[in-house]
């Protein structure tokens, strides 16, 4: 934090007075002065100094709002990390990691640290819709949590069914109060798909029996930033798998505000914290891809970044679980790895305390960060070639159906050929007869 403060002091000189906080009472994206260019993937901004100034003034304002004094700022992280025995050094290392993961220049590292500090005090609502709470579990239950997970454990959660103290009416009152008090400032994280069938009656939550649909709509309306975490919240996930009797949809389908999707099953804590930190830094969503995912995390295809890619190119594949190829870490393409169809950063920012990801563990990717992965990526342990094709009335793979059609066409052609042969012979005979007659007639005439 010391470094961050130094940077802060130097930046204060250039501070633009009228630069507005994004977390103002007007939470509409358009009224925020956050329309500056922000493109970490290429060049940060047209004017880098301007971007830095905006970020710095934003952080200063947020610190003023959420912390009592400079002492409070400095002590906050010590308190958070001392409980988990993370040293300042480890935190600084993690800051560097996150900065580079966010594709930001090094100059942003201290600012990322400050933003992470602010993040632990930012009002936070975590809604659970229809899902297995796998993301919550993944974030909360880690034996050796990384700073990302610790930050998630210490965020100022005002409403989160799984860990909150209030219950029943009190819990709901707490949520409503947060929505009212921190209008346009609070972070809304939604986990789980939202059932829309029967007007949302498939999911009712709380003492008043409100539907998940109502709660989500009401809470999303005034949120500062809306994040859908996990595949269910992003695209409907498993609750929305065919035939989807509850009419479950992703969060972006029920609100007309911008939703940042952090898909995967469960989502990587680094991706969630990184996105939140970037929101704290710039007050708006990071660059998103066409599926609403932050580009810094989801721009790389797993197959292209996989450490087994060389074996793919060399034609060396695991053919059977536990065969010699598996021991030698050959490519899992023929064991149904969906890495070629999946965009995520598992291979870079890994799971389980930055330790592993599916391919390293010896199993193929199941494509959990893609829409409708339960329908599109199955069967998980067979190559995509063995998937059934979506043609009504056809229950076959592309090859089976293709071969069947080819066979039918072949039979048809053969039948036609035989038919032609028979018919021609008949015609010829008739012709010969006719010719004979004609000849006879001619002879007669002659």
């Amino acid at each position, binding site marked *: 934090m010391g470094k961050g403060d130094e940077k802060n002091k130097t930046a204060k000189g250039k501070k633009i007075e009228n630069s507005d906080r994004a977390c103002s009472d007007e939470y509409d994206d358009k009224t925020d002065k956050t329309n500056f260019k922000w493109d970490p*993937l290429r060049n940060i901004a047209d004017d880098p100094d301007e971007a830095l100034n905006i970020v710095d003034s934003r952080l200063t304002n947020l610190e003023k709002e959420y912390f009592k004094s400079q002492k409070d700022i400095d002590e906050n992280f010590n308190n958070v990390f001392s409980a988990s025995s993370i040293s300042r050094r480890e935190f600084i290392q993690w800051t560097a990691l996150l900065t580079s993961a966010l594709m930001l220049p090094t100059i942003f590292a201290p600012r990322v640290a400050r933003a992470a500090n602010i993040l632990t005090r930012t009002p936070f609502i975590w809604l659970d819709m229809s899902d297995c709470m796998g993301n919550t579990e993944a974030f909360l239950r880690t034996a050796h949590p990384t700073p990302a997970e610790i930050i998630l454990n210490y965020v100022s959660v005002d409403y989160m069914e799984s860990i909150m103290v209030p219950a029943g009416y009190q819990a709901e009152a707490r949520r409503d109060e947060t929505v009212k008090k921190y209008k346009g400032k609070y972070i809304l994280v939604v986990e789980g798909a939202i059932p829309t069938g029967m007007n949302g009656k498939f999911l009712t939550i709380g003492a008043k029996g409100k539907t998940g649909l109502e709660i989500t709509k009401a809470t999303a309306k005034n949120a500062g930033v809306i994040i859908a975490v996990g595949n269910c919240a992003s695209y409907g996930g498993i609750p929305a798998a065919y035939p989807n009797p509850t009419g479950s949809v992703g969060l972006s389908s029920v609100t007309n505000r911008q939703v940042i999707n952090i898909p995967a099953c469960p989502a990587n804590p680094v991706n969630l914290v990184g996105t939140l930190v970037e929101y704290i830094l710039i007050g708006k969503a990071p660059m998103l891809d*066409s599926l609403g995912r932050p580009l810094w995390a989801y*721009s*790389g*295809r797993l*197959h*292209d970044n996989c450490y087994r890619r*060389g*074996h*793919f*190119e*060399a*034609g*060396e*594949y695991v*053919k059977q679980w536990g*065969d*010699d*190829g598996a021991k*030698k870490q*050959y490519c899992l*393409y*023929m064991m149904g790895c*969906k890495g*070629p*169809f999946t965009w995520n950063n598992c291979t870079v920012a890994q799971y389980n305390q930055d330790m592993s990801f599916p391919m390293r563990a010896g199993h193929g990717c199941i*494509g959990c960060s*893609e*829409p*409708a992965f339960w*329908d*599109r*990526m199955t069967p998980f342990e067979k*190559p*995509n*070639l063995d*998937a059934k*094709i*979506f043609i009504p009335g056809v229950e076959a*793979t*592309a*090859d089976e*159906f*293709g*071969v069947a*059609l*080819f066979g039918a*066409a*072949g039979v048809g*052609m053969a039948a*036609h*050929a035989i*038919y*032609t042969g028979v*018919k*021609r012979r008949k*015609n*010829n005979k008739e*012709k010969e007869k006719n*010719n004979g007659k004609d000849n006879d007639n001619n002879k007669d005439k002659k």
Partner: protein
Amino acid sequence: MGNINSSGNDSDLKVVHRMTVIKRIIHWTLFLSIINQIITGMYIAYPFLIFGKTPTQADSPVSGVLNSGETYQAFIMTWMREFHFIGAVLIDVSFFAWLYLAFFSTKEPLYKSFLPFGNKINEMYKMIKHYFTLKNKPETGKYQDPLNAIIFTFFHLLLLLQMATGFQMYVASFTGTSAVGAWWPAMLHICTDWTLWVFGGLTGVTLTHLFITWLIIIFIFYHIYIEVWRSIVWKEGDILIPFGGYKYSRDNLKEDDTD
């Protein structure tokens, strides 16, 4: 041949020019590259030859495991994909040349025969009828008959679909820029991203690509069959068209001059 001699029609045979050099080049380019695409594409979909020897993956022509030595010597998938891409480029160039000629060919713009208008659709049914009755052979001397024209058009639409789905899979590994500049992946995204919505994600696109391959294989066999059939039944040397560009014609000769 006895028939022809006996009916004394030999003098009626007339040589007709049907395919220009460019069209023949397009035809055989497509032929060779599609054969190449089928072989390499099937390998990419299902790598049937496993290179690289391990004790449990020993040499066996039955299971398709061949020893190619060290990993760095194999690179079989790389080569398959490389040839698949080269074949794709050849098909694309041929396709667009075909498309141009289909509209602007001075000899015979194909759109005149494939657009199903008026008597064209009638002629098409006549040809189908002829295939099953062997009677009343429609006139196919100078130009392509509408049935063939429509089937060829359908085939080229399949090629177009293959291009769209193929380029969608190709552009998947780009991250916004390329060796020739950002316009290339951007253009491919603009042209092919609709396939993701139509066919259900990249896996659906892949399966579509594979399924259309089968339709193309069926077309190839149909095409060869019907041309051989025509050559045998009509005795007009239809099979010679893509080689020499000429066929013989025995019908419609009197009205030919009025064309």
